[in-house]
């Protein structure tokens, strides 16, 4: 059982995610951006950071690298794919989840702890939470404002995974900050579960995302 951690030049949460996968009982392996076949893996996580410096647009350059083919193959094989922060932006750019994460309402970078509601607990990543459970994790981004044209479909197919509870720090549509594809196996979240995986760091709520992946395999 192995979980891949995708690495681009400019990724900076790769080590954190690797550490947290192991903390959750999984086995992690780094995957460099030029690999396009890693079907031996059971799941992948695209960590946060600034792939290619986020030059042009967050995630835009990463979304046209060879590694995307490998990720799409895993999706076809119905293996879990989680994108966190920059990873979420990349999944949006590829089109594996609906909608986009764009420049915050206040365009400054914003790092703070937020309260979140687990809207959908039927994905592998959120299966350890109760529906509508309130959890705590930090956000850290300048381009995290979620927008989608067809919000009704998103709702009817239960594709909203996480919503800000209370304050919305970036102007996201309907406070949405985590979405999944129709299968629920591809999930994009702006908050950082790996930064909330040990009580001493402020919360261990985030560890459930990784335990969820490990348990689903």
């Amino acid at each position, binding site marked *: 059982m192995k979980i891949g951690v995708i690495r681009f*030049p*400019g990724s900076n949460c790769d080590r*954190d995610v690797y550490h*947290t996968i192991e903390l959750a009982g999984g086995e992690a392996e780094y995957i460099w951006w030029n690999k396009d076949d890693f079907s031996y893996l059971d799941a992948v996580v695209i960590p946060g950071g600034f792939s290619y410096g986020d*030059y042009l647009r967050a995630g835009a350059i990463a979304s046209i690298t060879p590694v995307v083919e490998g990720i799409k193959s895993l999706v076809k094989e119905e293996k879990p794919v989680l994108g966190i922060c920059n990873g979420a932006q990349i999944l949006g750019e590829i089109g594996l989840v609906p909608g986009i994460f764009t420049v915050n309402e206040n365009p400054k*970078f914003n790092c*703070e702890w937020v309260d979140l509601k687990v809207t959908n607990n039927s994905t592998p990543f959120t299966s350890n939470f109760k529906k509508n459970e309130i959890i705590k994790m930090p956000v*850290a981004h300048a381009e995290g404002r979620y927008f989608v044209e067809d919000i009704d479909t998103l709702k009817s197919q239960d594709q909203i995974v996480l919503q800000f509870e209370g304050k919305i720090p970036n102007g996201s549509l309907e406070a949405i900050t985590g979405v999944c594809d129709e299968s629920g196996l591809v999930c994009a979240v702006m908050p950082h579960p790996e930064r909330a995986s040990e009580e*001493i760091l402020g919360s261990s709520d985030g560890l459930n995302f990784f335990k969820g992946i490990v348990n689903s395999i």
Partner: protein
Amino acid sequence: MTLTDSEMEYIRKMLKRDPNELEEGMLDVMFSEHCSYKSSRPILDLFPTEGKNIIMGPGDDAGIVAITNKLALAVGIESHNHPSAIEPYGGAGTGIGGILRDIISMGAMPIALLDSLRFGPVEDQKSRYLFEHVVKGISDYGNRVGVPTVGGEVEFDESFRTNPLVNVMCAGLVEKDKIVKGIAPNVGDVFLLMGGLTGRDGIHGVTFASEELTSDSEIEDRPAVQIGDPFTKKKVLEASLEILEKIDVAGVKDLGGGGLTCCISELVEKCDNGALIDLNSILLREKGMTPYEIMLSESQERMVFVINPKYVNEAFAICDKYELPRAIIGTVTDTKLMVVEDTYNKDENGNNDIIASMPAVLLADPPSLNREIKAPENKKESIKVENPPIEESILKILSSPNIATKKWVYKQYDHEVQIRTVVKPGDDAAVLKVDDENAVVLSCDCNSIHTKLSPYNGGAGSVAEAIRNVVSMGAEPYAVVDCLNFGNPGNPGILWQFKQCIQGMSDLAEKFETPVISGNVSFYNETEGIKINPSPTVGVVGVANLNNVRTMDFKNEGDKIVIIGSTYDEIDGSEYHRTLHDLEQGEAPKIRIDEEISSSKAILKLLNNDHGEFNSENNKITAIHDCSAGGIAISLAEMSISSNIGAEIDLTNIPISENVAAENNDKDCINDNDLLFSESHGRYIITVKPEQLDKLLNDINVPCACIGEVKGNVLKLTGKETDIKIKVSDLKNAYTGVIEEFMA
């Protein structure tokens, strides 16, 4: 050119000829104050630099201190004042870039950044512009390279209107047996230059930093500011760590001020070797660059690795993986000369054209200057002030941009990446866990008003305050780094200030057994006669057992509030004077080293006896906060604000120095106003479980007293002439949103 006549004379004597144009440029850079420390070196020798945990003191790119059996911390601090005054976004960003490279050069993974920033009044539009873009520069650079910015300070004062200060501290983790140095010990090894390309930016950056700014600097000196590229820096960081992991490198050094000239000459001079550099092998960003531009370029994101030729292919492969330009640019020789040759041009005998050839020691070790030092005439003002009602003063100080929350700033910094941040920004110091048991605790402080009024006490006091902040988090202080920002050293009064300040810092560091392991000097912080308040920024590294870490917020109603350390009648130089009366006058609070040490030791002893746990309900000691800017009043207010709980305080219980009481023959000789706002050193406020109070007071052998109780939603202060109540919500309103209102 800034070389003086006597320096030129010295150069001619050493070379036995005139330097050519290229050589003169290289010497000019190396003889600059920034590279040579020629005015400050004799005075910096006062610092204690060795101690039990110290692995490396000053002399390399960063100092190194042992923090656990296995791990060490590389720590450095740098100023980027002049560039930030001219081009705040790029200046601040490249300041981060420079200090990160210094840490990487020791073989360490950078784990924390702290910034100490000083600007003119926030009401001033230009100062706001500088503030906004310096913070954005730090944010865009630090966030992109994935190193958390976890702490620092911001001060606004008239004296920084034309000379903002941007000081950046960085700490990196390295296993003790993997430390590398900036040396080139083996003749025949080659220099691998990798990372960014060499371009025309930053030429004479160090000479520009070694002169006063003028009103034309913003236009004239822009080319001296380097261009930062955090994405490339991130790749350089990763590639460097991979090279260090896979290859047995002999030495590493980054290219900062003075570019290739400084880097190569210092690498070889340390080992009494020489260097032969092939000018044409250096990869350039633009066409038609002259040898002068190439050798002096301060283009960013460049590193030099000194390696055995057999490792070249492996090193190239790593650079290629990260798509980073790389080249072998020369070899280590035994000539003791720094030689640059142009392989495209041959002399009449068919040999490569030697375009520069000088003893490496001439470049790397210029003579010190013995400048005149003279105390300025002492005209101490003493304007008497009318004290407004205490309630009004507390709220006004809380809402001054110097005291109010800096959330607007630290929200823009990623302070969580690398998942070590145990205590978030806004408390006394940053706490970063390094393993399951231990944390490094970092603080960065300076009191520029105190230093202006009394350089000795201000210098020592800045070290004391930084140490108190680390101790407040439960850490034992291990080492100090400093960034000394002063005016023009050609002025004997400025150099007197500098020497007094260093003496104070040294005395305190010596007694505390916290050696000064790395530092930076920034002179010439004045513009057309306006001088900055002298600002010795002090970074302190402490190490805490995670079980001993305590935050400042009140935890439980009913906890007893204890103050440790005596208060003196020392209202001069206070935040109260600056905010309420626009005054910076009189004497700074005195540093009393023995009292400072006893108070700190008492805190650490209490924590060791607590046998507690971070954030545990069973702790006997529940909160700790130091007393500094704003005095007891502001410390208590901050404890209330961060917890939304009030307190009832009896001011008559505050321990006053016996000497003060005896001198005045009256133990009530300090009025309540001065008691609350004096910034005497050596004081902490802690909260304890009520049933532990008596035992605790008996256990420690320092002036201390219970002054009240955590209670309700009001801060209630009762004294001989005071009886006030302020709602915690009003304190909070005053303290929050202040900077946001100016910055939008």
